[in-house]
């Protein structure tokens, strides 16, 4: 079914089709519309979800954790400081191995306070044990949320899943997208039958007990193994989703990479801008390409290394500033992934788009100009730079 929806509407509609048992609901810009739309579905009797309105995101995630431990499917949505306030509970959800589905509408973190898009919120939570899947557009935001539960619920995984989309750019812009029929969604999601849960009276369960030193590390290894296993499960679910929808997804998305000498690595809605710029450059004979990272946790290191092998110069574009003084989080992962490659491309890092700073095809072209110079001269210049800020010096 073809329809015009904003990213937030699309995710709220996916939630409606899933018909979860519980939603922990607390509003924060730009994700507010998700619980708002969903509240309409609840009020109109279109879902039989327990819609729990709480006083903070710390509580909305706590609601999801409790519900999930009880054996219920729970969902949540948040942004920015809301995700930051959940921080403690994000680790609890992951370590208790509860497959909560959270829609994160990416927004800059305070401070200074700002409501616009970058990835600093979810990147801050990248090591919390959550699977992270990023959308380029509204269609992907919808599709990713539908895939979240089947990925997280599988016994080989049992981890919470955060599906991310760019605040306002994706969450509020209206696009034509394809929806699955609700019956097809229900069939795709299936019944939720966890092996153990608090309401199972046959065997009383304790969740999240205190873990002394002789056990903590073993449980963390179990969690790390689950994150490794998630890679295969994500691809399995994507294959099943392709059968239902006709839309194909991998861990990453390669665009015109087959013969690319110059390449970008980035995440989210900027991929659309980059693709447009690459099409223009290709018309002028520039062998430009893009690798869009769709799944950031687990990180597709081997797949990324394979995709970049053969390219001569690569720019990793981070939409968050990690303050490592050594490059952004995507750069750290990419450089690490390339370490074992014999013929490594030259690599630079560009931090861009913070707090809603716009990026245009002209900006992308400038990055490729710099990559073309590096490919010829072999001199990368400063490896870690910012783009889009006003400066007394030349940018890029």
């Amino acid at each position, binding site marked *: 079914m073809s329809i015009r929806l904003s990213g937030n509407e699309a995710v709220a509609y996916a939630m409606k089709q899933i018909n979860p048992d519980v939603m922990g609901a607390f509003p924060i810009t730009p994700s507010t519309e998700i619980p708002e739309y969903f509240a309409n579905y609840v009020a109109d009797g279109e879902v039989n979800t327990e819609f729990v309105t709480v006083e903070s995101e710390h509580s909305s995630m706590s609601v999801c954790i409790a519900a999930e431990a009880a054996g219920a499917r729970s969902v949540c949505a948040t942004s920015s400081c809301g995700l930051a306030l959940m921080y403690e509970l994000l680790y609890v959800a992951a*370590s*208790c*191995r509860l497959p909560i589905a959270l829609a994160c509408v990416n927004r800059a973190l305070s401070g200074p306070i700002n409501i616009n898009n970058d990835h600093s919120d979810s990147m801050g939570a990248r090591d919390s044990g959550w699977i992270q899947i990023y959308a380029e557009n509204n269609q992907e935001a919808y599709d990713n949320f539908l895939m979240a539960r089947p990925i997280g619920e599988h016994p080989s995984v*049992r981890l919470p899943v955060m599906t991310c989309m760019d605040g306002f750019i994706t969450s509020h812009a209206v696009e034509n997208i394809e929806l699955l029929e609700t019956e097809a969604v229900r069939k795709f999601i299936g019944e939720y039958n966890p092996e*153990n849960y608090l309401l199972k009276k046959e*065997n*009383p*369960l*304790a*969740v*999240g*007990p205190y*873990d002394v030193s*002789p*056990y903590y*590390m*073993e*449980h963390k*290894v*179990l*969690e790390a193994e*689950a994150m490794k296993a998630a890679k295969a499960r994500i691809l399995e679910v994507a294959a099943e989703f392709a059968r239902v929808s006709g839309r194909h997804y991998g861990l990453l998305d390669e665009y015109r990479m087959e013969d690319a000498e110059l390449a970008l690595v980035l995440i989210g809605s900027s991929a659309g801008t980059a693709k447009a710029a690459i099409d223009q450059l290709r018309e002028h004979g520039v062998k430009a390409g893009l690798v869009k990272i769709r799944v950031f946790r687990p990180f597709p290191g081997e797949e990324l290394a394979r995709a970049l092998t053969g390219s001569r110069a690569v720019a990793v574009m981070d939409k968050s500033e990690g303050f490592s003084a050594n490059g952004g989080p995507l750069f750290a992962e990419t450089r690490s992934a390339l370490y074992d490659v014999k013929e490594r491309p030259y690599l630079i890092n560009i931090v861009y788009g913070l707090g809603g700073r716009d990026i245009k095809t002209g900006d992308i072209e400038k990055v490729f100009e710099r990559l073309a110079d590096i490919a010829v001269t072999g001199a990368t210049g400063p490896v870690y730079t910012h783009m889009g800020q006003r400066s007394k010096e030349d940018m890029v």
Partner: protein
Amino acid sequence: MIYAKDINERTPWQDLTPGGEIYEPGTARDFDTGTWRTNTPVFHEEACKHCMLCVPFCPDSAIPVKDGKRLDFDYMHCKGCGICENVCPFPAITMVTGGAAR
């Protein structure tokens, strides 16, 4: 199903439960947590009137009761907090230094 009795500090990670979940009640009985104790209560039976004030105050249920009378401490679970000595109206409980059971 992995039961608590099958788990100990030599169990490899592959044989532990995800998230440390425990699939049965009452597993505290299987684990000696009295070793955390640095002070130890001593029970003087002759001074005890079996008023039972100490029993509900014990945070670890480490004072067993049988036929209306309290028995000696369950040193496998007593953490030596000393609350029992504090609430006892009689000289029936005294705390001594050290974790060894008396």
